[in-house]
């Protein structure tokens, strides 16, 4: 078997309780790499279009990459994927922790589920042997409880992904979590898992991931880490800053620089949120107990807090919030209270709710409340006002449990706006149903051939609202990185990651990989994710892009004064570069044949 891969994929039918192993052809791995590359290919081939995302025909995949669990620094990730109940199209979400490597050590590159179990179950894979077990005692438990109970039940060395009550209750913004907070957050995949009555997947194993050239892989590892340590970032090294703060080191400055959206995308940081000190890196780590990291990661950018001793009594071990959470529950809600953001983070991690969507939905609800569309009578007496951290935390818990007004908000802003009515949709900032990540596209991605077409990617990526995937040729390398199981922090800080990406793939797999081949695989992956959506009847050009996202009209003051993101030019240019039709977004027949997607070409161009 080619190095890096275990050579086995597990397919589990939850309706029948039966599972089978498959040994894929090497071409699946070489052409689609891993992660959502393999996932898109499998779902497109084996699942027809138009299935109910919460029904038995939807397939949930948990997929690693060839560099997951290898000497490659930051080779720690896995991808969850399915048809998204939030957007109705392709859904994927990426997480770290230890689960990805341990799924491989248990013998599998990936596991796919279809069907729906009659009663709650969990899957236990123990060194290759897969068994569905009763999860009746776990159903209704939160993620912390689930992880504790399964570890007690199954013994040492087990790694677990699970859903909490939010996923069980089919919240469209629920997520899949491992290690008490490494979240596969986006796309509402917690609800897919909940719809299948699949509570958890536990894995354990001691199988080795074959490495074609260990000596080369380990040498590259030393060189890669040494080079990462030299990268300067804002007065210190990237390595030192991220080890110390994770992504939370600059959220206060981002609130004022125009990067983080403010006040539900309608504010200006320096005017509406002048004191952002509660979001500073030092404030966020003031209660830090220890630093830790994903499997064998040299950066180890995670933080765990001591127990909250003030107003917010989150338990010891709660994860230090990351930048996206600080944005969603902080800047978006005009909330400068550090401890409340830690508490909201804990609630989301405990119940299994995506912090980006949850915070964004609360910001929407605050704006509705401030404008009289909803009142205390609607919100169970909670005064949803800007910066009211107690209200924000209280509503986060109600959303997580689908209680009272939280039930209205638990499916994100699009559904909440439909339920509230009275013109609430004007405050619902989403694309295709998904709330946006905390990076204002007006700040970056300038010009159609910019490094990252920042506005266009939110609209045009197969999972709308994401800032981590991309659109156009500039996204191809990133798609490879994601599919390979790498954390983006191992690649993007480097001036030239080509040497390491191609080097590690070659050393691990034994293939002679060039960066061009890997980027071509990334292009192939981008096309597969996109054609999945086309088959669902989605044309991303028809997604509504809220004017606040692109600055229409532009803000008059602040860092983004006068800026309107030229999303139209970004879309137009990149569609041309992709050779996708500029009206239908269909990839050309020529492009599909060039990528070896002959059968897709026959379907789209009969």
């Amino acid at each position, binding site marked *: 078997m080619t190095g890096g891969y275990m050579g086995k994929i597990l397919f589990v039918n939850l309706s029948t309780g039966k599972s089978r192993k498959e040994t894929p052809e090497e071409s699946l791995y070489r052409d689609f790499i891993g992660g959502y590359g393999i996932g898109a290919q499998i779902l497109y081939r084996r699942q027809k279009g138009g299935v109910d995302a919460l029904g038995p025909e939807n397939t949930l995949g948990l997929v690693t990459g060839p560099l997951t669990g290898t000497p490659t620094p930051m080779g720690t990730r896995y991808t969850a994927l399915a048809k998204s109940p939030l957007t109705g199209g392709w859904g994927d979400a990426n997480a770290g922790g230890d689960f990805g490597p341990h799924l491989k050590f248990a013998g599998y590159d990936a596991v796919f589920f279809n069907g729906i179990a009659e009663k709650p179950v969990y899957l236990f894979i123990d060194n290759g042997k897969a068994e569905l077990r009763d999860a009746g005692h776990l159903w209704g438990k939160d993620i912390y409880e689930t992880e504790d109970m399964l570890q007690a039940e199954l013994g040492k060395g087990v790694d677990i992904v699970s859903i909490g009550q939010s996923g069980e209750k089919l919240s469209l913004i629920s997520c899949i979590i491992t290690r008490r907070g490494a979240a596969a957050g986006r796309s509402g995949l917690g609800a897919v898992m909940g719809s299948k009555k699949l509570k958890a997947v536990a894995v354990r194993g001691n199988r080795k991931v074959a490495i074609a050239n260990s000596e080369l892989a380990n040498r590259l590892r030393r060189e890669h880490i040494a080079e990462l340590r030299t990268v300067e*970032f*804002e*007065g210190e090294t990237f390595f030192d800053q991220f080890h110390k703060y*994770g*992504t*939370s*080191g*600059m*959220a206060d*400055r*981002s609130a*004022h*620089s*125009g*990067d*983080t959206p403010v006040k539900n995308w309608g504010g200006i*940081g*320096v005017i509406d949120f002048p004191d952002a000190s509660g979001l500073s890196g030092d404030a966020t780590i003031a209660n830090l107990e220890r630093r830790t990291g994903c499997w064998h990661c040299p950066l180890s950018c995670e933080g765990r807090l001591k127990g909250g001793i003030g107003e917010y009594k989150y338990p010891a071990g709660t994860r230090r919030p*990351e*930048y*996206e959470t*600080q944005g969603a529950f902080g800047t978006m809600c005009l909330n400068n209270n550090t401890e409340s953001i830690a508490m909201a983070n804990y609630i989301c991690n405990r119940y299994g709710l995506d912090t980006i969507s949850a915070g964004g939905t609360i910001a929407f609800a605050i704006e509705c409340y401030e404008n009289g569309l909803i009142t205390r009578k609607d919100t169970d007496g909670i005064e949803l006002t800007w910066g009211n951290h107690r209200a924000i935390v209280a509503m986060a818990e109600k959303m997580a449990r689908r209680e009272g007004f939280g039930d209205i908000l638990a499916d994100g802003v699009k559904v909440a706006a439909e339920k509230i009515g009275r013109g609430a949709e004007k405050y619902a900032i989403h694309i295709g149903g998904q709330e946006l990540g905390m*990076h204002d596209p007006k*700040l*970056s991605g*300038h010009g159609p051939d910019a490094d990252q077409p920042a506005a266009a990617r939110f609209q045009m990526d197969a999972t709308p609202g994401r800032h981590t995937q991309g659109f156009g040729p500039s996204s191809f390398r990133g798609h490879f990185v994601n599919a390979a199981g790498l954390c983006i922090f191992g690649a993007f800080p480097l001036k030239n990651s080509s040497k390491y990406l191609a080097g590690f793939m070659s050393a691990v797999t034994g293939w002679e990989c060039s960066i061009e081949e890997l980027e071509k695989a990334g292009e192939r992956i981008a096309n597969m994710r996109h054609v999945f959506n086309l088959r669902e009847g989605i044309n991303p050009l028809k997604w509504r892009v809220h004017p606040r996202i692109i600055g229409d009209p*532009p803000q008059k003051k*602040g*860092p*983004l*004064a*006068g*800026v*309107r993101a030229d999303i139209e030019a970004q879309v137009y240019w990149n569609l041309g570069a992709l050779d996708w039709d500029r009206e239908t977004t269909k990839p050309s027949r020529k492009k599909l044949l060039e990528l070896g997607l002959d059968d897709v070409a026959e379907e789209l161009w009969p």
Partner: protein
Amino acid sequence: MIRCVVEMFGLPPEITELREVGVELKDGASLGDLIAALRRKIPALEGRAIRAGEDRLTQYYAFNINGRFHFDDSELQLQDGDRVVLLLLASGG
């Protein structure tokens, strides 16, 4: 004479706590001239927002001039009345 008020956003307090700084430039001055003037006014910008020894910004900063972003075009000519913002591009995750 070009009179320019440069607003600054996202800069760390150890560089400056100022939110804006006024600079005077000769007619026909370029963005490079503006950067040189900023360096003289706020020496701590050098090495952080401004490349050491060069009249260019570092990779993590940009100018918003009249609603358009400029990163590395030090030859860009400025006009009196231009609205200039210096801001941080880098962030977390």
